[in-house]
């Protein structure tokens, strides 16, 4: 079965500092990969999704970028963090079939101070 590894679990960063969150996948190949952000107690905002290596779709113009250098690796980055970048970041995968289940990592709680 597939598993998703996200790290770190929590992160406190000053405004203006860079960010790199990594997500790696095991147990499957050629998955769709997603980055979502979640405000406290609210729904998931889709940030980026990728259907393959080097293929990134950006959903919301913002201070973040994503890359997929390998099939099972998805990276979320920022050159300079803003206070508004704080939130709970979730990496997810699903298969390229219409009704498949999405599996999520444990998330990273980012606080920008």
């Amino acid at each position: 079965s597939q598993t998703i590894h996200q790290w770190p679990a929590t992160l406190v960063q000053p405004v203006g500092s860079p960010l790199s969150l990594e997500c790696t996948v095991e147990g499957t190949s050629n998955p769709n990969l997603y980055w979502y952000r979640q405000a406290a107690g609210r729904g998931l905002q889709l940030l980026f999704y990728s259907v393959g290596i080097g293929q990134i779709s950006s959903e919301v113009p913002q201070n973040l970028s994503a890359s997929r250098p390998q099939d099972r690796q998805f990276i979320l980055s920022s050159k300079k963090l803003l206070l508004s970048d704080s939130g709970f970041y979730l990496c997810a995968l699903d298969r390229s079939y219409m009704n498949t289940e999405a599996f999520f990592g444990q998330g990273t709680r980012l606080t920008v101070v």
Partner: protein
Amino acid sequence: TQLLEQSPQFLSIQEGENLTVYCNSSSVFSSLQWYRQEPGEGPVLLVTVVTGGEVKKLKRLTFQFGDARKDSSLHITAAQPGDTGLYLCAQRKWGAQKLVFGQGTRLTINP
């Protein structure tokens, strides 16, 4: 842009009561999924509905997909404190691969 509207946003009821939460869109769904999320964890799939008018049951949870495939509901019978959590619906539009979530319903069941 959020494509899915969930209501209510917050719901707090007593143990043993029944409740229904809703998920609506102006677009036709190819399929719709319901997820439940605990604090500090990722969402976990409860059900996928595909066919208009479809009804699926998962113990005390009943999921219904609207005939026009634009709406769905989740009904919980005799709610228990263990049902507490954030309930999210998610959709893929026809021809799209990305999975988009609603804003969720925060459900609290009081003992």
